[in-house]
């Protein structure tokens, strides 16, 4: 067991955890933030995407011990003051989710994209989102949702 200090969704945490766990396990099992999902545990599906020091990462591929001092944003921090964000609203409005299991990861990848590139082209979106798999929607409505969020006010 070792102590890790990190900031998650703006809150500082000191977590005592084994040295061999991933950031995903830390978030889900120690901070009880279960929005990031375990789809493959091998960095292949994107369902566990969080924003880690400003970049989208598969949190199953980051060791918790690496996260000392890290700033992490998860899906739980996306809605503010009891309201969904415009990006989240755009997902709802455009039917960009069905079963919802990939959705937190999708939204975090899209959030990271829009933070870095507020006006992405369709190709930019496809390139940025390629690592997030969805078996339900066929992706098209997700692209539309991100385009709409980019066109609207953040």
């Amino acid at each position, binding site marked *: 067991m070792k102590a890790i200090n990190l900031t998650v969704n703006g809150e500082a945490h000191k977590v005592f955890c084994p040295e061999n766990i991933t950031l995903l396990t830390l978030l*889900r099992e120690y901070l009880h*933030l*279960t*929005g*990031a*999902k*375990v*789809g*493959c*545990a*091998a960095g*292949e*599906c994107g*369902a566990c995407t969080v924003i880690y020091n400003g970049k989208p990462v598969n949190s199953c591929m980051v060791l918790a011990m690496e996260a000392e001092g890290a700033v992490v944003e*998860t*899906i*739980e921090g*996306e*809605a503010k003051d009891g309201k*969904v964000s415009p990006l*989240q*609203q755009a*997902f*709802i*409005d455009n*039917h960009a*989710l*069905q*079963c*919802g*299991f*990939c*959705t*937190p990861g999708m*939204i975090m990848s899209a959030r990271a994209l829009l933070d870095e590139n507020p006006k992405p082209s369709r190709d930019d*979106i*496809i390139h940025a*989102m*390629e690592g*997030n*798999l*969805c*078996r*339900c*929607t*066929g*992706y*098209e*409505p*997700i*692209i539309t949702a991100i385009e709409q969020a980019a066109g609207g006010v953040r």
Partner: protein
Amino acid sequence: MSYIGKSIKRHDGVQKVTGRAEYVSDIKLNGMLHAKILTSPHAHAKIVNINTEKAKALPGVRTVLTGQEENTLVGIYMVDRSALASGKVRHWGEAVAAVAADTEEIAEQAVKLIEVEYEVLPIVFDVKEAIKPGAPQIHENAEEYDYIKGVFHPEPGRNIANRTKVRRGDVEAAFARADVVIERTYEQPQVFHLPLEPHGSIVQWGVDDNVKIYSSTQSPFAVRDLFAHGFGLPRNKVEVIAPYVGGGFGVKSGIHMEPLVGMLSKRCGGRPVKFIPTREEECTTLPARQGMVSRIKTGATKDGKIIAEEAEYLWVGGAYADYGVNISRAGAMTGCGPYDIENVKVDSVTVYTNHVFGTAYRGFGHPEVFHGIERQRDLLAKELGMCPVELRLKNLLMPGRKTITGELITENTGRVDKCLKLVSDKLKVGEGYTSQQLAEMKKTGKYRGKAATVLQKSPAMPTSSASSAIIHMNEDGTVHINVGGVDFGQGTYTVLQQIAAERLRIPIEKISVAPGVNTDMSPYDWQTVASRMTVLCGEAVCIACDDVTRQLLEMGAIALRASKHDLALEDEHVYVKQNPHQRVHYSKICMGYTYENGNAIGGPIIGRGKYIAQGLSFICPETGQGKTALDWTYGAHAVEVEVDTNTGDIEVLQMASCLDVGRVMNEAMLKGQVVGGVLQGLGTALSEVVRYDDKGRPLTRNLTDYKIPTFKDMPGNLDVSYVETPQLDGPYGARGVGEHPLISITAVIANALANATGVEMFDLPLSADKVRAALRQAK
């Protein structure tokens, strides 16, 4: 109508975009243990000995279980699968032993300490060999298994779990007088459903056999029924909860890991035990779609009328037939597609092999059958020098004619011809390219081609499969709908809200559908499968709304001192038709009405609705004749592809898909089903294949080796349209549509490939390496 057909947003959107939607893997219970399984490293082997002593001695291990100690047989149609392998293993990845421990890590360590001695047996991988006399048998005691007699027809001693036959007319005589006969064989590998959420389950088998199960399932009531049946428990002692479910596509129907996890919990004094399969276990322990080898022989006159068709469908059932026997049965019923053919012989056979076992997958056998059937139509057109669209139009089923199983097609059954014309006109299928375009193709080596295919599907379900709904009114006149079917993404609950808003004249935001299903509280629903929810559960909600309406009018009559006949509903009020200002808000009557002096009458309004398909029959075991279809949803796809003859890559430039949905209930969500289903079908067509080595060991155990379509694999442009021929017994005329977009995708791509390059390919997938090899061979 104000709500039907509108693109109402998902009922659960906020829960899902905020990460608050709770799936089984997110649930933690007090005292919960974690399970891991040891799986078979052989595709077919006798279990000689299992030693669990070292595993049991590991601190933190609470129980270790093998199939020799305790077991149960499970299966929804063919009860042939035990919770843990017993005596022998029949596929690589089969669960052999299980551990429950304080943590996942301890359980994983313990599993590694279990020693199993195997005696390897010869494997059976080729369905054609498997059914030959003398082939090694995968289930030696097949005749002892329980199944529905008269519905399924196993042939013990031949590795055959079921044979369904369709016989109509005289095929031999018709082939003899046909001008053209073509016969082809098509091979399709197993594919994975691959919902992103694995099959999670948590089971708490408490004192006095009270069992509580949390399961990622499409079928909470089937889980309850099969679990209780397997362990001899009364249904009221088993509670199954399906919280949010992260996709299924069929792989979460029936029953899966719940019995095993239940046995572990029972052995641990009723502590809850959680088991979440790894992605590798999802790919090797849990089922896939069956593979298939089909041989189809078609006879036609020279003017293009199909007069005979003979099909043999050999399904790669894998190690257990469980669900597979009903898939082969469904395949037989649809065996020649939506065509009017007088002479038909179909044999559809589920064959045991040492593959991972097969189960229901979106389309339930139809995508596999239609691959061969719709390839066959284009091959026949080519042979006859006809336009393939014309050939289809000449042979499609029209009102007044009968299906191959003798069902009469009426004006309201749906119009496959309209769907086909619509999509082929949109993409101008059948029209050639200009000489300039052709010259350009020759120069670049990128050849374009077009094709169109048709499709049909009806739900393949027991004749008695039922749905029900309960509607409660709350104090303020808002409404809760409670159903036993699962919304695992397809959007059923939103459609049910629309129906209730429409019928009860209440704004949709005042109607909620209780999320998740709990078999102790939700009304019964057979299973969420077969594209049956909008129709069967939708009808149940219609009837429950009518029950609520009747009660509102009764109470309104008291409150308004009017005859019920003078009353109607609008805008959350009961009002007097001739004096609309005389009205009473639902909130004043839905918990009972209180007179001015305090006397009260009535009570809470609760509506009840139930529905069962009318008039379905068993089929004749010899001829397959009978009525099995609740509804036939027809459709068609057209596509234009570009084939890079240098690399073998197929790019989908544009597509058009059209379905006769009866009635569009929610256009945006309907389009979501089509766009998602088409891309899933393109995966089957172009890249997806479950691979094994020569010892039957699976090679595709993760998402790197098994590729599903990504953002980069979307078709260029997908035009989605609908025909609306109302289904007389569907709510507002609607019929099922969830599975259909995936059907006939593989054939339309293969047909377009042939149109582009002249190269005919029969087997799947049409991956670049195989296409390139075929192009080279054709040169």
